[in-house]
């Protein structure tokens, strides 16, 4: 065939490697980069002095003998789960295990992690040791403590140097062995292995240093207790098991990923990730005690009616011959769905009706042969089944007996609210952005009003409104838990901001892309799903991740409406314990470290995602 394109490729051009960048010795590097001009030298010295002052101040704060670091160590359980009952604590560990298993499998299936040269690891360890040694000299330690820290720093630095030297020598030895490519061969280590080693070190330290073995319980004497040996109190055994579980899951995923079809496995894992939060929260942590009479008498019949009726309707709507009348019927279902809110009835009937309406509206896009139709109806049955099950579970009283409104608090509550808010507000925000850019005036107007209204109101107002006011307006017999109400309000708030981020992405899709999609005969829906949204979302990854970090951090406002999030516990609950009066500063510092770790991980994930989706872009 004609290979007209590679006219330049066919020419025999001898390959000239670029000149090697000269590798500077440390002293030369310092001179070239830090002391190149007199002005530069002054700047370097001044910044070094400022850094040293800040470092010394921080270190004298951290290692001051009057600091009550015991408060954080003893209250770790309070910070994580607040008053979750001790005898049911196994549920928390089961949830952790499920999340870790999913993490391990996903790491393997998505082939996460890269390889770094061992010499680089060695260099980093060496640098860490040097920094620790420097800090030790800065810190106001006693002589013996200084010696101990210096020895620790020397051990770390020595390990780093050994890695660096050892690998370098092995490389040169194999070079002497006569292998041609030995010059390019570098001993590498997987980042996953490095993380596993680091986590292993942390878990092992639990067995040596007893910081995870204390607990503080209000209704018990003595209230501060060390090593009672139960799953609830001692975390060393559970965390060891957790580490083994995540490592095992990674290996399992690695051995299975080549035998299973990639896309199907990934889709299954994604569904599992989406189902995990509600299932773990409402079935495992909350443990509803189902009333079988009610389940059989009310919940199952409602499910059956929607399954059969909705299935038949959707199977008719996805028939390619149905045509225009199908769209009218779908619109009628939507109107009926909204009308159900006018009269009192079970919430589940309304929710199911609205879900059926959205499935009916989307049906023409998925119209096709019998196989496509069967798949669509199966999708409906799956969504209906899962949501019916969850709604029934939510409406059933819990067996977990705790004081207060919600059965869990602390970091768990922060995560629960953040995850649910993000998961709910993403589709909502995308829909709002599409509505605001659509050509249909009613949708555009409604979306614009909603976004502008929500953006003009402080978040605290919305949280208070949803937690206090909304229950007053609800029809009789309908109840909305406080956390559920707050999540709905927070998700609406967040979706307005998200919509504006997505809208920026939508506007970056060029007119040519729209025209190309239209020119091959795609409908507006197909164009949006296959062409516009993928490109728009890719462009908006940085602002979207920034928004997610914001949502995660602003969950601390939950304290205002009386929920015990992690910051509130650190700021108010712990400093009021008689044993740890006035430990606010230590606790808040510790909690901000927790926030930083997760926020930083999100932002790293965003950078990786950008790199990955940037492939093939330009």
């Amino acid at each position: 065939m004609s290979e007209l394109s590679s006219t330049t490729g066919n020419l025999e051009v001898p390959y000239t490697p670029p000149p090697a960048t000269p590798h500077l010795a440390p002293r030369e590097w310092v001179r070239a980069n830090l002391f190149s001009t007199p002005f530069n030298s002054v700047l370097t010295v001044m910044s070094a002095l400022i850094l040293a002052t800040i470092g010394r101040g921080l270190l004298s704060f951290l290692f001051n003998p009057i600091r009550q670091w015991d408060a954080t160590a003893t209250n770790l359980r309070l910070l994580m789960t607040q008053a979750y009952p001790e005898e049911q604590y196994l549920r928390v560990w089961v949830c952790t295990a499920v999340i870790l298993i999913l993490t391990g499998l996903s790491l393997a299936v998505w082939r996460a992690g890269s390889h770094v040269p061992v010499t680089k690891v060695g260099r980093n360890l060496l640098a860490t040791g040097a920094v620790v040694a420097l800090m030790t000299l800065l810190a106001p330690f006693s002589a013996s403590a200084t010696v101990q820290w210096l020895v620790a720093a020397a051990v770390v630095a020595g390990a780093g140097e050994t890695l660096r030297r050892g690998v370098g020598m092995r490389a040169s030895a194999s070079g002497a062995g006569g292998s041609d490519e030995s010059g390019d061969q570098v001993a590498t280590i997987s980042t996953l292995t490095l993380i596993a080693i680091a986590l292993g070190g942390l878990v092992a330290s639990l067995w040596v240093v007893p910081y995870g073995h204390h607990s503080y319980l209000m209704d018990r004497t003595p209230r501060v207790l060390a090593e009672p040996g139960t799953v609830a109190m001692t975390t060393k055994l559970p965390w060891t098991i957790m580490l083994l579980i995540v490592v095992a899951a990674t290996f399992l995923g690695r051995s299975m990923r080549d035998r299973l079809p990639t896309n199907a496995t990934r889709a299954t894992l994604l569904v599992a990730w989406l189902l995990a939060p509600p299932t773990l929260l409402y079935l495992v942590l909350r443990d509803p005690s189902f009333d079988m009479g009610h389940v059989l008498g009310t919940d199952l019949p409602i499910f059956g009616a929607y399954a059969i009726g909705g299935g038949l309707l959707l199977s008719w709507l996805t028939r390619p011959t149905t045509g225009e009348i199908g769209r009218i019927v779908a619109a009628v279902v939507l109107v009926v769905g909204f009308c159900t809110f006018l009269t009192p009835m079970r919430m589940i009937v309304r929710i199911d009706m609205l879900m059926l309406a959205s499935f009916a509206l989307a049906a023409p896009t998925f119209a096709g042969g019998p196989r496509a139709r069967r798949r669509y109806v199966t999708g409906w049955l799956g969504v209906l089944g899962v949501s019916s099950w969850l709604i029934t579970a939510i409406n059933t009283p819990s067996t977990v007996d705790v004081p207060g409104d919600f059965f869990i608090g602390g970091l768990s509550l922060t995560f629960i609210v953040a995850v649910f808010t993000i998961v709910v507000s993403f589709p909502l925000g995308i829909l709002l952005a599409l509505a605001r850019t659509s050509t249909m005036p009613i949708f555009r107007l409604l979306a614009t009003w909603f976004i502008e209204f929500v953006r003009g109101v402080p978040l605290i107002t919305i949280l208070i409104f949803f937690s206090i006011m909304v229950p007053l307006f609800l029809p009789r017999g309908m109840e909305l838990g406080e956390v559920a109400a707050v999540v709905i309000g927070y998700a609406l708030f967040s979706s307005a901001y998200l919509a504006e981020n997505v809208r920026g992405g939508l506007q970056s899709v060029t007119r040519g892309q729209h025209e190309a999609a239209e020119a091959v005969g795609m409908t507006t829906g197909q164009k949006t799903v296959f062409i516009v949204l993928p490109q728009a979302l890719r462009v908006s990854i940085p602002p979207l991740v920034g928004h997610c970090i914001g949502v995660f951090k602003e969950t601390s406002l939950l304290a205002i409406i009386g929920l015990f999030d992690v910051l509130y516990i650190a700021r108010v609950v712990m400093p009021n314990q008689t044993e740890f009066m006035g430990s606010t500063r230590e606790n808040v510092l510790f909690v901000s470290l927790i926030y930083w770790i997760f926020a930083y991980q999100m932002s790293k994930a965003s950078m990786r995602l950008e790199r990955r989706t940037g492939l093939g872009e330009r």
Partner: protein
Amino acid sequence: MTENPTEANPLDPVADAPADAPTGAARDLSGARDVIVCEDVSKWYGDFQALDRVSATIREQEVVVVLGPSGSGKSTWIRCINRLEIHQEGRIVVDDVELTNDLRNIEKVRSEVGMVFQQFNLFPHLTILDNVTLAPIWVRKKPRAEAEEQAMALLERVGIPEQAAKYPGQLSGGQQQRVAIARALAMEPRIMLFDEPTSALDPEMIKEVLDVMKTLAHSGMTMMVVTHEMGFAKEVADRLIFMEGGQIVEQNTPEAFFSNPTEERTKLFLSQIL
């Protein structure tokens, strides 16, 4: 491929014509059906009249090249034919379907009419293969395997089957435009519209795209081409249409058009470009 245009292609939507049938003035198309009929088509952008009572008829298997200085309305006209632009007066009938605001008619016409753009407009987030198969799978409801087989055959036909797994950004301009042609052909259109397909290309890549278009013309596709490539117009076109100021000034066979233009404005245009 270009040396061998007679290669039979089972996927060719209009392969019933002999592939080595002559194009250009030697061909007699008087008996063929009218597939595009424009009657007094007018369009305004604000107060500016972009199209002024354009009337023309294009027959089945005819290759029509539209010439004219920039701003003469040739792109606007060709984009009106699959309703990427909306004409305000007159009628456009494509394959017996009139273009009105009725969405079903527009979708029907668009699936019959393939379009190739100046800026290629490939979907940058999809591989070459996905670019070609997306519309057949979702608009024509073809099974994926069948669509992929057809896409590979089309990529073979435009000479770049080995690029199927790459992304558009990794291809040269000429290759991208050939993929765009394959993408349009995957919908098995009866008519192909080309809107300045070589204007954004480097000179050495123009030939590879024109060669693909020539093969397509020889295979009997009905084509309407807006271009500045006079060599292509001379060699392949059955008819040239010269536009200026939103009007059709002159239309004729290539020989008559270049050797013996009747209108003053045509003569002026030809004197500037030749």
